């Protein structure tokens, strides 16, 4: 095993949202297909929700990359909290109108009504729970005009559930929930991710027991799994540098190392 394999494997689990890192799992693929189908429907708004780390941002990124070649689609991963800035950004991205001064909702609506794009632009808003209630209400009004289609993601918490109920209950025609993976899905996720980066040896190190240990600490959350496995391969790399790798061997991932990685990432309070 080359000395760089653990570093390469470590980099695979860097917590970066990149559509190339999207791992095709059966259940996730079905959800993604239903999301794509929903975009084609004449829906006012689509809500994508789930706990943090369930892959909402990855979904939006993947959707953006898949749709950008065929239709007008804009992804906003970071919320634009200023209302005027939000309208100005949309005016520029959708209608290519650069507005120098303040742009309020009424002025933006005039621009929307005057425009004739031929197809309905799709706006993907990530972390929508960070938008103010006032701005969310304006987004609702914009979606009611059916000139712009919004796909928004929300964290599934009690507070966000309330927002969803109050603002979108009557307007959202499609709601898609993302969940943590099962142990079997987690194994596929980890091995596919490693194999994508040609780390076949490290992918084979994960057996049922080690995956269950990982699942015990992460509960199938993709973000936590990425963090844990990044720390795990970091540990491997460090032991390798200290020439102590023979203590554990490379045939399978020992529970001790997974627990140490969990302690390092804070998943275990030790």
């Amino acid at each position, binding site marked *: 095993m080359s000395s760089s394999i653990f570093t390469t494997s470590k980099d695979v689990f860097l917590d970066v949202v990149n559509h190339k890192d999207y791992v095709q799992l059966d259940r996730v693929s079905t959800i993604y297909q239903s999301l794509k189908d929903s975009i084609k429907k004449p829906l006012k708004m689509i809500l994508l929700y789930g706990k943090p780390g369930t892959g909402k941002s990855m979904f939006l990124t993947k959707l953006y990359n898949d749709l950008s070649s065929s239709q007008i689609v804009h992804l906003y991963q970071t919320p634009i909290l200023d209302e005027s800035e939000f309208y100005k950004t949309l005016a520029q991205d959708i209608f290519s109108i650069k507005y120098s001064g303040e742009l309020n909702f009424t002025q933006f609506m005039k621009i929307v009504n005057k425009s004739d794009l031929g197809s309905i632009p799709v706006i993907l808003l990530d972390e929508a729970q960070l938008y103010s209630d006032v701005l969310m209400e304006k987004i609702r009004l914009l979606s009611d005009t059916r000139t712009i289609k919004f796909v928004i993601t929300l964290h599934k918490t009690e507070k966000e559930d309330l927002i969803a109920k109050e603002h979108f209950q009557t307007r959202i025609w499609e709601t898609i929930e993302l969940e943590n993976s099962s142990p079997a899905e987690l194994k596929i996720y980890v091995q596919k991710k490693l194999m994508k980066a040609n780390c076949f040896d490290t992918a084979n190190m994960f057996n049922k027991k080690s995956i269950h240990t990982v699942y015990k600490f992460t509960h199938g959350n993709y973000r936590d799994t990425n963090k844990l496995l990044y*720390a795990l391969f*970091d*540990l491997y790399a*460090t*032991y390798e*540098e*200290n020439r*102590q790798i023979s203590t554990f061997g490379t045939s399978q991932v020992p529970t*001790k190392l997974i*627990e*140490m990685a969990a*302690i*390092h990432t804070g998943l*275990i309070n*030790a």
Partner: protein
Amino acid sequence: MLDIRDLEKRWLHYKIKSYIPHAVILISLLVISGISFFIFDSSSDLQKQTNQESLKEKVSTIKETQKIVKIKPQAIAKEPQITMPLKEPSHPTKMTIEPSLSFMKNMQSATSPYYHETNNYSIPSKKKKIIKAKPVIEETQDVIVEAKEKVKEIPIEKVNKISIKRRDTKDDIAEIITRFKKNNNPALSLFVAKKYYELGEYKKSYNYALITNQINNEIEASWIIFTKSLVKLGKKKMAVRTLQTYIQNSHSSSAQLLLEEIRTGKFQ
């Protein structure tokens, strides 16, 4: 670069912490099982002790009784060593010896004549009682024979009084009639019928024979007295018919003989 040493220390801490609940549960289980075993063991020891004590008592009792039982053949063999169980006066199971001794007394009084010489118990008085009882039994047996083996429940006292039957006075008959009225004994009514017949009062003998028949129609003597009374009263045909009916049912030879005597005129 990770601080592996620090991480390993933290991991060791974590491991110890994670094993603490298991260790606590294990230790507590061991302690509980140990305590319960100790309690069970001590209670069983106590039980064993009590059992052993009771067993010892039982064994000693059994030994005593065995000793006594062993004495029986000795007594029968007429060897004057009957006082063996009395050799241990300080024994705690004195109480159990006492009834056995009384049994011995009875046995010895009944069997061994030598016992009177070696023992101071009041056996002669008991012997007297037994001797007294014997004639009573004989008397009752005699009385039952007199009542022709059919009156089994006749009390001894009554039978004793019946034994005065040989006195042929009317007063005695009246007394028996009153007793008959009290207990409705067919033996008494039959006796009265016989007495009246002997006295020549055939109407009364006929009546008492009839009463006896009503109480028990299987008494041959009552049938015979009844028919004899009928003949004496001049009702020969009726007597013959009565006897014929009785003979058909009972095949009595004495009734047959009487019938022949009536027919031939031997009995008038």
